[in-house]
Every structure is written in C-alpha cells, then in structure tokens.
C-alpha cells in the first residue's frame, strides 16, 4: 500500500495485466509517442502521461502508436479482441467518439448478439472526459451516458485512484467491451492504493458515506464533492448516504433502491448533460421502483444543457460543485 495518483493507478493496472497476460496490448495516438521521430521514444506516454513507461517495458509490438485515425484503430482493437487479443485502445478524449462511433456502437457492442453469442469481444476503450481544464467544448464533455444507452457495452466511471486501479484490472479481464472513462481533472488526485493487483467487480456500487436522511448518488469526480457535502451536513444534522455506482452499465439498481427505501430522499449528481443522462435515468428508476418511499421530489444536480464553455468564469459555473449539491440536499431535506 502506498500513496498513488489516479494516473499511477491506471498505469499500474495496465502494467500488471500486461505482465500477467501476453494477449493484452495497448494502442492509441501517442500512447508511447515519438514513433518514427528522431528524438525521444516514449516521449509522451499519452497526452497526460498515463501510459508512460509501458512501451520501454513491453516494446512497440505491444504498445502500438497509431496514426490519427480513430475509426481504423478503434475498429482494429475490436477486430483484434474478436480474434484472440485483449486490446486496450486509447480514445484520447471522449469527444472524439464522434469520429469512430460506428466501430463502437455498431461493431463492438453488437457482434456478440448479431452472431448468436458466437463472438467474444474483450476490448477496453480508455477515454478522458470532464470539464475543469479550460479545454472548451470539444475536449471537455461528459458523454458516457451515450455509451450506457447502447446494449452490449459496459461503462465504467471511476471516482478515485483506488477505484481506478481495481476497475481497470476488471475491465481488462472482462470478456465484454468496456468503455473506461477517466476524468482528466483527477489524474493528480492521490490516495492509498495497494501495490498488488486487485479487481473490483462491475455492477456493485460503493457506499462511501452512510446516513439516514438523504441518499446522494454521484458519478465519477462528483463522488468527491458529494462526500464533502455529506461530511459538512452531517455536522449540521442532515445525515447522508453517498453511493458511487462505479459502473453505470451495469448499474447497481438494488443498492440505490434499498437506500432510498431507507432515506426517502434522493439527490443525483452527474457531470453529464441533464437530458437523457445518468441523473435522469437514476431518477426515473427510483420514481418507478421506490415511489412510495419518497418523502420529497428527486433532485438532479447536473450542468445546464449547454456545451462546455471555454471561459474560466463560465466553466466554473457549468460544473456541478459543492454549493449546488449542498443546496439540493438541503432542499430535499426540507431545510432550504
């Protein structure tokens, strides 16, 4: 056990699984860097350094830099997965799904079903998402609900370094296509992370705070903010349960419903857009299956339905933060 950043945690999971299984390969744009160039090899290790050091250990045969051709290499990862490898492809920013979505939506997700169960596609697509980097509208979105909408895909949104390592290990060992969404503003977050490999099962939520008055379901980076609110309001007489679903597909329905049955109040916090997103999905689930337990209307805390703005002044308002979560919790608790 030692302090590790989110970046190191993901790197370790990739490294450990590559050591364990020679079928695990990585591919993506600049995941080593310097391919074909005269200068430093492994110059980048991905744009934010997450895969740094893996090419020197495993070689260019297993850490493949690609041309900027997302359709070709994401599709190649899918085809390689269907024929015997276990590729981890790096779709640099989640916004770039737009240029290769067919290979994810129509090929990766559906091969198994269309072929009557006679295909297995153990591919992981790593991708960065999230606002807070002043990276503007095409490098900042939280588009993971679009993947969760597609049957055949599994979607992981880790909330901390510990979670990231265990969930990445599971993603690589999993036999289905997994979209692994890493919040770019979390790479330098640190916490104690075991040195040895471990896998966190999919579809099992993590309850990070336990309380009787309000259930907060938060996704990805929002878990940290929700915990902060729970700790603060706990001292003021509002005790909160915080649930981190870890995977939004599969979604741990039971942990959410059971908690709302106890508290009768729900706040859902998500960084994705409000329409047809995870917050709306979870709110609908609770309205359908735990309506009688509800003592107050469900509240969704999300960004407004806008693209992510560039200006720091605007982006800071865009991101759901502690004050808005706190206000929502107070509102459902009747202490607004």
């Amino acid at each position, binding site marked *: 056990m030692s302090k590790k950043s989110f970046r190191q945690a993901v790197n370790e999971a990739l490294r450990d699984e590559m050591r364990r299984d020679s079928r695990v390969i990585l591919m993506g744009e600049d995941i080593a860097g310097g391919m074909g160039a005269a200068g430093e090899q492994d110059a980048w290790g991905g744009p934010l350094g997450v895969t740094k050091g893996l090419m020197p250990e495993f070689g260019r045969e297993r850490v493949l830099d690609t041309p900027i051709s997302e359709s070709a290499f994401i599709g190649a990862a899918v085809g*390689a997965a269907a024929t*015997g490898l276990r590729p981890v492809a790096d779709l640099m920013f989640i916004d770039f799904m737009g240029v290769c979505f067919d290979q994810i939506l129509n090929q990766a997700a559906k091969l198994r079903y269309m072929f009557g169960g006679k295909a297995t596609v153990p591919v992981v697509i790593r991708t960065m998402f999230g606002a807070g980097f002043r990276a503007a509208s095409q490098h900042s979105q939280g588009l993971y609900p679009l993947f969760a909408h597609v049957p*055949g895909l599994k979607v992981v949104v880790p909330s901390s370094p510990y979670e990231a390592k265990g969930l990445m290990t599971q993603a690589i060992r999993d036999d289905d296509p997994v979209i692994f969404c890493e919040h770019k503003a979390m790479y330098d977050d640190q916490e104690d992370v075991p040195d040895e490999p471990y896998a966190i099962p999919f579809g099992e939520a993590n309850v990070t705070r336990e309380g009787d008055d309000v259930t907060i379901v938060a996704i990805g980076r929002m878990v940290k903010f929700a915990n902060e609110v729970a700790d603060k309001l706990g001292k003021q007489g509002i005790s909160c349960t915080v649930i981190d679903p870890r995977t939004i597909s599969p979604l741990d329905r039971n942990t959410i419903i059971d908690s709302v049955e106890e508290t009768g109040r729900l706040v859902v916090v998500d960084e994705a857009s409000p329409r047809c997103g995870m917050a709306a999905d979870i709110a609908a689930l609770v309205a359908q299956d735990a309506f009688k337990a509800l003592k107050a209307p469900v509240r969704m805390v999300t960004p407004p339905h806008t693209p992510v703005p560039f200006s720091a002044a605007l982006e800071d308002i865009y991101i759901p933060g502690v004050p808005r979560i706190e206000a929502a919790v107070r509102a459902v608790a009747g202490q607004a």
Partner: protein
Amino acid sequence: MELNREQLLAAYHQMRTIREFEERVHREFSSGSIPGFVHLYAGEEACAVGVCMNLSAKDYIASTHRGHGHCIAKGCDVKAMMKEIFGRKGGLCGGKGGSMHIADMSKGMMGANGIVGGGPPLICGAALTAKTLKTGGVAVAFVGDGGFNQGTTLESMNLAAVWKLPAIFVLEDNGYAESTASSWSISGEPVKRAAGFGIPGEQVNGHDFFAVYEAARKAISRTREGGGPSFLHFKVSRYFGHFEGDATTYRGAGEVDKVRAERDCLTLFRKRVEGAGLLKADQLDTIDKEVAALIDAAVAEAKAAPEPSAEDLLTDVYASY
C-alpha cells in the same frame, strides 16, 4: 499455379452453390417467405471463391452487405445459413443476425456488415492478432465500390500499411453502390489509390475465376510472407438489385442479360475446363444436381425450423452482466 481436378471441382461446386443459393433466396423473398433486407451476390461468385480458395481456417475475412457468397466460400454451413436468412432457430447466428449480419467466427467469417465500410477496421484487428500471435494467418477485407469511398476503408488501408499488417483489401466493384455508378463515385483509379498508401494492387476481371484465383494467390502469398498489405480490384457485375425489391431502373436496358450471356463466371469456367479437357460436362452437371438438391433441402429445413423463443431475445448481449 495449376489447379488440380479436385480443386477445380471444389471451385465449381462452391460457385454453383452460391448461385443456386442466391437464385433460390431471390425466389423465396419474392414469395414473401423471407423477411427484412436481403442483398444478393449472384454474378460475383468467382470473386469470393477465387479469393477464399487461397485461405485456410486460420485466416479471417470481413464481408459487405452482400455476404452470402463470402460465407459459402469461407466454408459456412449452407443449411444453417438458410435458416439464419429465414430468421429461424438453428440459424448460423440463432436468427439474431439475419442476412446483413451473417457470420461464423469459427470459420474465420467475421460477418456481413450492415454498415458500408464497417469491415476494414475489424480486418486490421484480425491481421494484428495474426501478426502479434504469429499464427501465420492473413485477414481479408472485402469492400464494395460504395465502401471503397468510406473513410474507414481509407484509414484502414493506411493503418495496415503503417503497421505492416498481413491484410488484403479486396474491392468488389460491381458497378453500382446502391443505384450510383462506381464510374462516377470513385475518383481516380482504385489501384493508384492503393498505391498512394504504398500498397501494391492489381485490377482483375472479376468474372474470370482463373484470373481472380491467380491474382489472389499472388497477393495473399506476398502478404502472408510478410510483404505487408495487398490490394485487388475486381471489375464485376451483380445480377440482382442492390436489395431484393430494387427495380434496378438505373441500369441500362439489357445490361444484365448481356453480362449473363457473355460474361457469366460459371459459363466461362465450364467453357475453360471442358475446352481444356480438365473436367467433363457430366461431372459438372452432377455437381449442378447435387447443389440443387442441397439448396432444396436447406430451404425445406429452414421453413420447417422453429422460430426463436422469447427467451432468446435476452441472451447473447453480454458474456456476463
């Protein structure tokens, strides 16, 4: 390279099987027995068979909308294929794929594809697996003249060249992408387009089995031996519409009849082997009868097969969930 008698008989058997299969699917569709969207391969048999005779079980192919011929040429079970196209239990994909997604990974057939240009990226992956695991295998992407203008195909040709993959790109240019002529939609010469990626290629008469076989043999050997990706451009014709139900009013008067009369791949094959004394007409007639009986049986079994059950709707989405 000379083909021996067994190989020639096998080639004719496969081409005849594809023709009979497609002609029969055409009739069954017209009578309302087959649901959905169906795209037939009749007329192009020499392409699939000439290429796939150079492949083995460890090699993969990815197909197009027009996938029945590639399935048969790669060794898929014809009766299970017919059941699949009828949407029945016991179909090659359990009735869940249908004509547009027909596949059998155990035969190295990675599927017909409902997305034009969907296959080439997958083939880069299959070729990467062969290269990484050193299986000695190759992977072949069949694309139509429509798919040849998709970015996925062009990106894949570049990626295959950059990664030096054992991949072969086969353009089946049947003259029409849906209703649009390839003479209009493809700018420049396809072989030169491939050359632009550093991929050697050849244009071949796709009606001539022997020309296809020989060009494919050279290209696949070159790629299999580590020479990097290869390209083939087959000029060919389809006998039916883009989809079943297409009135094909965009085609010239008498165009298909002329091809059937003058350039039919089965007729050309018979002329060649009979003329050279390699095979006798009665040997080929026997194959015609065997194949007709096989397809009759396949249709009868497909019609008699049960529909999938309601539980089948929910299976095969995930390995675990």
